[in-house]
Structures are given as structure tokens and as C-alpha cells.
């Protein structure tokens, strides 16, 4: 069975790049545009891994991560934070909020795939 990845990302292009990258690598992708959607989908779908953009309109990635971590069954799910280069120190805050790893924007698709594989193993 394919590993399922929840992507929480508000930008269309970034979603498309990750979608094309991960589906071609053999993962199943669930997409959320806002932090609230992300939390809801995580609770409903229990994905194997979550890619969490930090800069989101409304509820941000930190808050979404904290809420997901409070849900039974999601406490150990790997969450990879996608942080913005613009805000140094985000990595620490992301890890403090409960993320497992982080990828700094601008991410190279190759580097992102490598991090996902490191967390899940090849599908």
C-alpha cells in the first residue's frame, strides 16, 4: 500500500511541484490549502507523513502542528516543516512546535524527496 502524505500549502505552484514530485515517486498525496483544513484532514485521514508550510494565512504552521500533535494517533506522525528563508530562527520554533524535521524554502525538489524518504523509507 502506498504511503500517504498530507501537504499543507497555500501556494498553488508549490502544491503542484510537490504533488508532481511525490506522486511520480510513488506516494499518495492529500492536499490542504489552509492550516484549519490541514488539521481537519490530518484527524480524518491519519496520513503517514505531513508536509507543513509554516507561513499560512490564518492559522500558521506552528499552531496547526501543535493541534495535530494533540490528536490521539498523530503524536508520532512525522511532520516536516517547510520554513521560509526570510525568517531566521523558524527552524527552532518549528522543532519546538513538534515538527520532526524541516526543509528551508526555497527547497530543491530533490532535497525534499530525500528528506521524505529519510522519514518514511522508499514506498
Amino acid at each position: 500500500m502506498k504511503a500517504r502524505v498530507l501537504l499543507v500549502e497555500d501556494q498553488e505552484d508549490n502544491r503542484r511541484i510537490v504533488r508532481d514530485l511525490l506522486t511520480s515517486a510513488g506516494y499518495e498525496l492529500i492536499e490542504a490549502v489552509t492550516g484549519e483544513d490541514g488539521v481537519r484532514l490530518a484527524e480524518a485521514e491519519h496520513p503517514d507523513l505531513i508536509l507543513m508550510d509554516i507561513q499560512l494565512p490564518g492559522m500558521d504552521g506552528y499552531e496547526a502542528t501543535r493541534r495535530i500533535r494533540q490528536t490521539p494517533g498523530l503524536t508520532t506522525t512525522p511532520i516536516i516543516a517547510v520554513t521560509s528563508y526570510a525568517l531566521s530562527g523558524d527552524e527552532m520554533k518549528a522543532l519546538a512546535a513538534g515538527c520532526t524535521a524541516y526543509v528551508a524554502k526555497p527547497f530543491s525538489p530533490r532535497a525534499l524527496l530525500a528528506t521524505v524518504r529519510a522519514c518514511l523509507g522508499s514506498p
Partner: protein
Amino acid sequence: MIDRIVRLVARVPATVHAKLLTAFLLIAVLLIALGAVGLRALIEVNRHAEELVTLQRKIAAYRQLQHDTTGQLYSVASALIVPDERTFEATLRQLNQFGYDLDRLRFVARDELELFGRARADYERFIEVVTHVVELLRGGRVAEGRELQLSQAGPLADRLERLTNELVNKAEADMVVSVESAQAAYVRSRWIVIGFAIGTIGLALVLGYAISWSLIGPVRQMEARLARIAAGDFAGRVAVANRDELGTLAANLNRMSGELGRLYEQLEAASRHKSQFLANMSHELRTPLNAILGYAELIQDGIYGEVPEKIRDILTRVQVGGRHLLGLINDVLDLSKIEAGQLKLAVSDYSLREVVHTVFTAMEPLAAEKSLNLTIALPPEPPTGRGDERRITQVLLNLVGNAIKFTEAGEVRIEAVARDNEFEVAVADTGPGIALADQERIFEEFHQADSSTTKTKSGTGLGLAIARRIVVLHGGRIWVESEVGHGATFRFTLPRRAHPDGALPETA
């Protein structure tokens, strides 16, 4: 009390010029008055001295009179004993002499006119008697002469003697009184002069103190305020009560301070807006650029199907161009954040060895492209450092990137040494070197060493400025050692343990 006088002088609504002139004039008037009082005392003392001299003369004259009276009696007596012509002549001469004395006394004995009048009357009588006695003796009527001498001339002479004694005594008593009054006058004058002098000096001192402090006080206040303004504090005001030029100056100083404060706030706001705008703008620029780079990589990796070799090459160029553009945007963003004071160090433990190796791995292909030798010299086991690893890597990447960019042949060498409290990292190249004049300037924003190379070597000229800010934020310093034609060595130091928020003591 004295402070109240100072405040009072300060509040006088007159110019400083008028106040000073008035004070000097007042002091001059006091000095003149002091002089006048002194002079008056001198005149007084002098008058007493003259009086004493007069009295002394008078006493001498009275004594002379006394002496002459006795002489006269003696002379008449001897004429009775030796009644010859010579003795008569001498007696009459003496009588005349006695008359002169009395005439002279008329001018000095002004205070004893009554006594003197009696003495004169007695004397005239005495002359008559003596003249008569002499005539009797000349006429051979010796017994009659002696009779007259005994009955009249003797008692007259006695009375004259008593009178002259009285005159002398009175003059001497006057003398004693005069000496006492001279003494008293002297003491009085002395105290008046001393008192006046003390008063004058005291008044001059108080006046000088009040005026000088009514000027110095505000000047000091304003000086302190100006020092604070120079240090960037525009909030305070000087409270100067003076209603003169200094008061106007203080009011203007307060106005200037307020105006400067307002301008400073405007400038700060403008600078913040600019930095914020740059930060926002570069973020906005990066978003589509990220998409371009991401899609290019996916295409290149064959996600969207097989890519012909020719297109693959073009895609590589798209990516190189895109990454370059991203680097420039990141530089602008970094600098604007540093300027806005938003760049905070994310301090954690790091391995210097890992930093150097990361940079080596990233830069090795670039060096290989130009056939340059990239080498590393590291201590065997450098201790763990504490700082912002990503920013330190950024600094080293920048230095090595520059070295590779400007070196056409030879090698680029990364060296690191660990000392007690700091690391020192050096990047040495065999490039063209940097002229002494440029060695400071290249660390300033938008500067490249030789503007002619700017055309062939791309770059914003911000890399070294950012590197310097990062190193300084860590509490270290960065400099270059170079000679034109002999390569360049960039060195920077990092304290082993940087302060968590990058707040560091002022570095010169």
C-alpha cells in the same frame, strides 16, 4: 538665600550685556564710595594732627612768655642793685621783647582771649611801672624806685606769672583733650573704612556670584542637554528661567531638540518602511522564482517525461540563472533585515569541521570548473562552537565563492585554528590581490574592489558587507591581508561562545 538671589538675577528682564555692565558700574561706584570714605577719614586725622601742632606751638609760646616774665623781674631787680645806664638799657630792651611776645601770642591765643586780655592789661601796667622805676633810678631817687618796685612791680609780676601759668595749664589740658579726640577719631575712621571695605567686597562678591551663576547655570544645563541630544536623546527639555539671551537660547535649544526628535522619528520610520518594503518585495520576488526553479528541476529529473539532451542543457542554464537571481535577492533581503535590526542569530552548538566541510562540498565543483585547487587545513579535533551555524556557513561560502570567482589560476585554501576563546578562519587565494586603499572599502555596502572587474564578475557587492555584519553580530571581526599581485587572505574570528541574541558590547 544665595540661590534666590541667583534666580532673581536670572529673571531680570534685561540682556546679559546690560546685566554685566550694571554690575561692573555698581562695583565701580562702590569702589569710588570706598575711596571717598577713606579720604574723609584721612582728612579728619590730618585735621587732628594740625590741631595738635598748633597746640604745641601755643604751649611753647606761653612757656616763652613765662620765661620772659621771670627774666623781666630779674632784670628790673638787677637794675635796682646796679643802677647804671647799661642795666637800664637792657631792662627796657627786655620790656620791648616782652611786648613782641605778647603781640605774637595774639595770633595763637584765640581760645583764651579773656585770660590773654588780662595778661595784656597787667603787662601794660607792668611796663608803665617798670619804666617809672627806671626813670626814678636814673634820677637818683633810688629809695623811691625800690619802694615802687616792691609795692607795684613785684605783685604785678607775680600776677603775670600766675596768668601765664594758667595759660600754659589750659593749653596743656587742651592738648590732652585734643590727643584723646584725635585717637577716638582715628579709631572711628578706621572702623568706618574697614566696615565699608568689607561691605563693598561682600556686595561685589554676592553680585559677581549671582550674575555669574545666573549665566553659568543655564550654560551648563544646555551643555548637558546638547550632550544628550548628541547621544540621540531628544525627549528632555531644559528649564531655564532667564529672560535674557540665554533664555532665548534655551527656548531655541528646546525647539531644535523637539524638531530633531520629530525628524529622527520620521527618518527612523522611513528607514523601517524601506527595510520592510525590501523584505516584503524580496519575499514576493522569491515566490515565483521558487516555482520556476522547482519546475525546472522536476523537468530535468524527467518527472514530466523524457527530456532531449539539448533542452536539458538549456534547463541547466535556466537553473544557474535562476539561482544567481535568488542569491542576489537573498543578499538584498539579508541586508535590509540587518539594517532594520531584524536579523537575530539562531544560536546553537555547531561543529566548525562540519561548517568547513559543507562549504568545501558546495564549492569544490566550482573550483574544479576553473581548475583551481581547493584545500582545507583544520585542527584535528576543533572544539564545539556556539553560534548561528547557517550564518557562519553563509560567511564562509561568501569568502570562498569570492576567492574562486576572482582567482584564475592556483589554489584557494581554507584554514581554521582554534584558540582558547575563539576560532580564526582564513580563506587564502592566489588571485590578483586587493590594493591597500580598497581593503576597508570592500566591506562597505555596494563596493567592489575594482569597478572594472565588476563588469566581468557579477555580484551585488553586498556579500562582504553582510559577512561583516554577521561576524560582528557574533562578536568577532573580519579583515583582509593582501598585496596587489600576491593574492589575498580574508580572515575572521568568532568567539567560541557567541551571545544568544547577538547583543554585544560596542565594537570600535
